[in-house]
């Protein structure tokens, strides 16, 4: 891929060793109706530098909350979050995030949106344009530099958001259901792009998704979470080299296993959760 960002090349080779995330005894509660409601309970997780970790789980298992804590948008938690040994206290240009909605600013062109991310980096001004162009090329959007977000399709806008998140070369990139709003075909396409980009960049990535197939296709490991309160239920190693083949039998077997895992709890609770309508009770 010729669009490989050049900035990688003049970094020392040990740069791939950056981006180790450690999560220790993480608890998080929200106040709901004046009472604390636990959303994350005793999360322990170590992500290796350069690893791609997927997190799946039913809605409400706190997986998006976990990402917001790691990126530093929410600092009200107990436990410990560290990136390369440094405690996470607020947001940092070392940690990037891609949201489910692209969150591009509509009055800025694609180029300006990407360049905004470089505003407070120490990147020399005269190199910024080149770095921005390289990252736009990395997500295959060359030719759309001057386009406004409303002129881009959903998939293109999300790819632009990926370019913006990568342009600062974060040690850790968090992806919060980044493809959730895309149609099935576009999803597959952007999944392939993500895999290619990750293989080119090798920065640590943690992706939350509700799509088990996507989690397995991209992840070196898949964290399965259970809700109420959010806990890690199981960690699945996906022992397949990248780039992967979607038809791989291992992926399909693991998918069935994880889906069974995710739905088994629901079945067990189903009897308890049945709503008893008074008028329908047998008399």
């Amino acid at each position: 891929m010729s669009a490989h960002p050049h900035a990688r090349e003049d970094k020392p080779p040990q740069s791939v060793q950056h981006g180790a995330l450690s999560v220790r005894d993480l608890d998080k509660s929200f106040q709901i109706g004046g009472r604390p409601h636990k959303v994350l309970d005793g999360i322990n997780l170590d992500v290796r530098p350069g690893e791609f970790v997927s997190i799946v789980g039913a809605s409400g298992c706190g997986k998006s909350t976990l990402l917001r804590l790691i990126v530093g948008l929410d600092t009200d938690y107990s436990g410990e979050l560290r990136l390369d040994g440094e405690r996470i206290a607020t947001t940092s240009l070392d940690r990037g995030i891609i949201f489910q909605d692209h969150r591009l600013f509509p009055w800025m062109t694609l180029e300006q949106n990407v360049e905004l991310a470089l505003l407070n980096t120490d990147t020399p001004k005269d190199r910024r344009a080149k770095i921005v162009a390289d990252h736009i090329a990395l997500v295959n959007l060359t030719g759309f530099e001057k386009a406004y977000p409303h002129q881009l399709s959903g998939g293109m806008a999300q790819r632009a958001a990926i370019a913006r998140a990568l342009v600062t070369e974060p040690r850790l990139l968090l992806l919060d259901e980044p493809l959730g709003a895309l149609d099935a075909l576009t999803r597959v396409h952007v999944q392939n792009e993500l895999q290619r980009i990750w293989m080119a960049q090798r920065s640590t990535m943690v992706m939350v998704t509700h799509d088990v197939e996507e989690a397995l296709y991209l992840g070196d490991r898949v964290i399965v979470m259970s809700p109420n309160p959010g806990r890690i239920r199981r960690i699945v190693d996906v022992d397949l080299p990248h780039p992967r083949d979607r038809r791989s039998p291992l992926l399909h077997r693991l998918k069935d296993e994880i889906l069974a895992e995710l739905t088994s709890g629901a079945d067990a609770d189903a009897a308890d959760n049945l709503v008893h309508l008074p008028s329908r009770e047998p008399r």
Partner: protein
Amino acid sequence: MTSRAADLLPPVRPRRAFQLSGLPVGALLAPLLLLGLWQLLCLSGVFPPQVLVPPSGVARTLEEMALSGELQRHLGDSMRRLLLGFAIGAAAGMAFGVTIALSRLAEAALSPLFLTLWQVPVIAFVPMMVMFLGIDEPFKLAVVAIAAFFPMALATFDGIRGVPKSWFEVAKVYRLSLFQLIRRILLPATVPAVLTGLRVSLTRAWVVLVAAELLAADSGLGQMMEMGRQLFQIDVVLAGVIVTGLVGFLLDRGARWVESHATRWRAA
């Protein structure tokens, strides 16, 4: 979290049907029809010509007043008041809107009074204002300024409060300073709402100004109509009606043009 940027913006009104550029023939149809009916009604003789002046009579009056310079004098006086009063009122409204949008305390303290006063027609303040300010320029400027103040303050407030929380999060992720946040995110994000506010307050100020001139003035389009009424020159009154409407129409069109050109990044 499913919202796209397009959903986060205020809805865009379809503008195609009412574009000034290349004024469609259809836009002239209704006025011409109205003129025709008016002329027919005059020819039918239901009303005496002194009461219902025919269009041709009004056109002649307009021409005479334009040739004598009387029309320009009245129109010029009105426009001067409009622009000065509007500038004062819109600036004050913007400052007030920013204040109550940024400070919860200011909002709690001031917005009930603001919303109550907003429900009162500006014309209702005229008798009081005449007592304090007389009927000279300060009075007319004050009327215009008040009329422009309220829609401007409200639009600015809504514009700032309408900035989605998710954009602040993006700003935080990229470590934008407060100054960068204001300059790069808050200002551009509020431009559409503020421009809409400017347009609404400009046209509202115009209507209120003419009404105030009808009540108390020594010059201006409103006073021209009021004099016509007192002298039973209905052609002068109708000439004033037409010019007032046209000026308001052009103000609205001009403001819309500025709006759409300043916010070209919005989905059409």
